[in-house]
């Protein structure tokens, strides 16, 4: 006999993400754009460092003031140690996706000439800039590298905002299937006679593509694939290791959202895709909540000092804030009902931008 559990009895999420920093090696923050993902990542990292965990935060495109707050001046692929964070140690790195891809090419190339040819190929150059998911893939790549660095006990990773949510999970697979495509393989390797007819078909396809895009593009693309020959194995192996890391128990996905209709809808479709990839959500950060004002306090002296018009304006303003708050609560519960996260951190709207480590430490308190 199965027992239906009424939704009201469902376990309430734990307040805060505090236990994650002690138990995880990697915390990935994901979610829609414009919800404060980068600040949240930095705040978690500062909080972790303050509690004595050696932490590195990996960011992609931090706002200027946040970068200043963290003390990172330049984009680069080497973590920079940040001064003066209580008892702990904190590093930050601002990712340079182009440089990371170039590094990979150099690593997997069989010779300097091969690397040189690829790096100067225009199709490659455009590919690294425009292939959707390259940035995301490089974030994962960097993550893997830092994961093996004994300096760090915890990595907090700010995933890039992306038009196609979760490109970063799909990117390694997409890159491999791109490099592995049958049609291109057949063009590269004439192979046994048995396969030749297919190869001819592939050539015919290419020829027609030339009519659309111009022969020069096709030639350069073919040159790129020829140069890449033999490097797919390195990329594939690496991509598999990255996937394995993401599926480890010590890796936690935290979703960052904000209590607005469109943001919650985006977060929900995000959650769906995440579970489609076989990942659970370890927690939700619901950011930018309007604070609660209605506590029932009314000052009699203020009451007496106010004209009716001013009193109405103040009452209306309070009522609107309460309305907004309840609408926000409804959005948050929509998210919680669907995703049932084990942890929840509700973060109030900050008055200004994050501008210092102290600001981050303060935000960390409401997160952890």
């Amino acid at each position: 006999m199965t027992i239906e559990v009424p939704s009201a009895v469902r376990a309430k999420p734990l307040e805060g993400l505090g236990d994650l920093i002690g138990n995880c090696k990697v915390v990935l923050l994901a979610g829609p754009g414009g919800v404060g993902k980068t600040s949240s990542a930095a705040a978690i990292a500062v909080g972790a460092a303050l509690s004595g965990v050696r932490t590195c935060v990996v960011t992609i495109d931090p706002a200027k003031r946040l970068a200043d707050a963290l003390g990172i001046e330049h984009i680069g692929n080497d973590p920079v140690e940040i001064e003066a964070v209580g008892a702990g140690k904190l590093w930050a790195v601002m990712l340079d996706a182009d440089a990371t891809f170039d590094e990979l090419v150099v690593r997997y190339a069989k010779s300097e000439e091969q690397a040189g040819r690829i790096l100067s190929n225009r199709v490659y150059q455009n590919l690294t800039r425009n292939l959707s998911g390259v940035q995301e893939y490089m974030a994962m790549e960097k993550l893997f590298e830092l994961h093996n660095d004994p300096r760090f006990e915890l990595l907090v990773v700010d995933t890039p905002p992306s038009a196609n949510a979760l490109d970063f999970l799909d990117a390694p697979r997409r890159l491999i299937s791109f490099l592995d495509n049958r049609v291109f393989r057949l063009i590269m390797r004439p192979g046994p006679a048995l396969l030749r007819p297919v190869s001819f078909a592939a050539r015919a396809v290419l020829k027609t593509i030339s009519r659309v895009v111009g022969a020069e593009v096709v030639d350069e693309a073919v040159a790129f694939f020829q140069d890449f020959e033999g490097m797919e194995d390195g990329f594939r192996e690496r991509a598999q290791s990255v996937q394995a890391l993401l599926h480890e128990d010590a890796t936690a996905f935290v979703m960052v959202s904000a209590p607005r209709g469109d943001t919650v809808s985006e977060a929900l479709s995000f959650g769906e895709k995440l579970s489609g990839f076989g990942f659970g959500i370890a927690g939700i950060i619901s950011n930018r909540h309007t604070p609660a004002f209605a506590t029932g306090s009314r000052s009699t002296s203020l009451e007496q000092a106010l004209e009716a018009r001013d009193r109405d304006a103040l009452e209306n303003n309070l009522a609107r804030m309460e309305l907004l708050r309840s609408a926000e609560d409804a959005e948050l519960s929509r998210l919680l009902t669907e995703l049932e996260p084990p942890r929840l951190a509700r973060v109030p709207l900050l008055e200004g931008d994050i501008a210092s480590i102290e600001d981050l430490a303060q935000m960390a308190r409401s997160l952890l």
Partner: protein
Amino acid sequence: MAGKPPLIEAIESATVLIIAGKGGVGKSTISAAAAIAAAGLGRRTALVGLAHSRPAAELMRALGEDAPVMAAISPKLRIFELRPEEILVEYLEDHGMASLGRRLISTGVVSVVSTAIPGIRELLVLAKLKQMERSGEFDSIILDAPASGHLLTFLSSPKGLADIANVGLLRSQSDDVQALLADPSRSKLVLVTLAEETPVSETSQTYSEVESQGAIALGPVITNALQGLTPLSPEAHKALEKLEEKDDRADAYRFVASKARLQGENLAELRRRLPGCRMARVPFIFATGLGVNELAGLAEHLLSEASDDN
């Protein structure tokens, strides 16, 4: 001189408006409101979004609602969802290559090609816009541009492609799209932002980059979600200042006032950084979900707001 509302000016000055901004600034909302505004001006309007973005889909549903406010507008407004792969196949069909299109899809070559040939997805979207513009079916075409930090990549993709493709259909498409973007009477870029520190600095940076790159003419910058605040009498302000007890109304007012002040400072900073740029302001809507009525309200606001220039 009191100018026309900046959005009306933009709508009347160019057929294609590309509405762009970072994620979370309300770009899709503004696009939908702008499309309602254009239709409200009696123009045959297309609102174009990219498929697979759920908020866009919800807005489209909202616009499809059978609300009285839409009665006058609906006949003028059409909504399109674009998928780059479908545009490519349609394009090949139009050029007598239907079977090639099918074969490309079945072998997975389309996805490889669209990846291998950088910028082709962007180009396909822009080429479709150009085709819609050339068809003469629309007086206004509003594109809710893909939310990404790669606006410049998006806009420069035709040029990038033209640089590597010397001949072929791709080349001629790139040239046509570049011509569309370069002509201020055919297209304009409208940037949407928030009066917050980071969006302001990113928007002014993007604005300057687009301006110096010259790929497309710039329309107004729209600042979204500005906090409204009912003004109080000087006596009330004094009473609030002197107040020592706790009062919910005072707390709420101080919170909103401080937010409005901060937004005001950020807006002033945006004006300082972009002198001569036309600007429109959109109020914060007290609703977390946007239905047709809220969108129509925003459109009304954009149509009536006097210019807010330096």
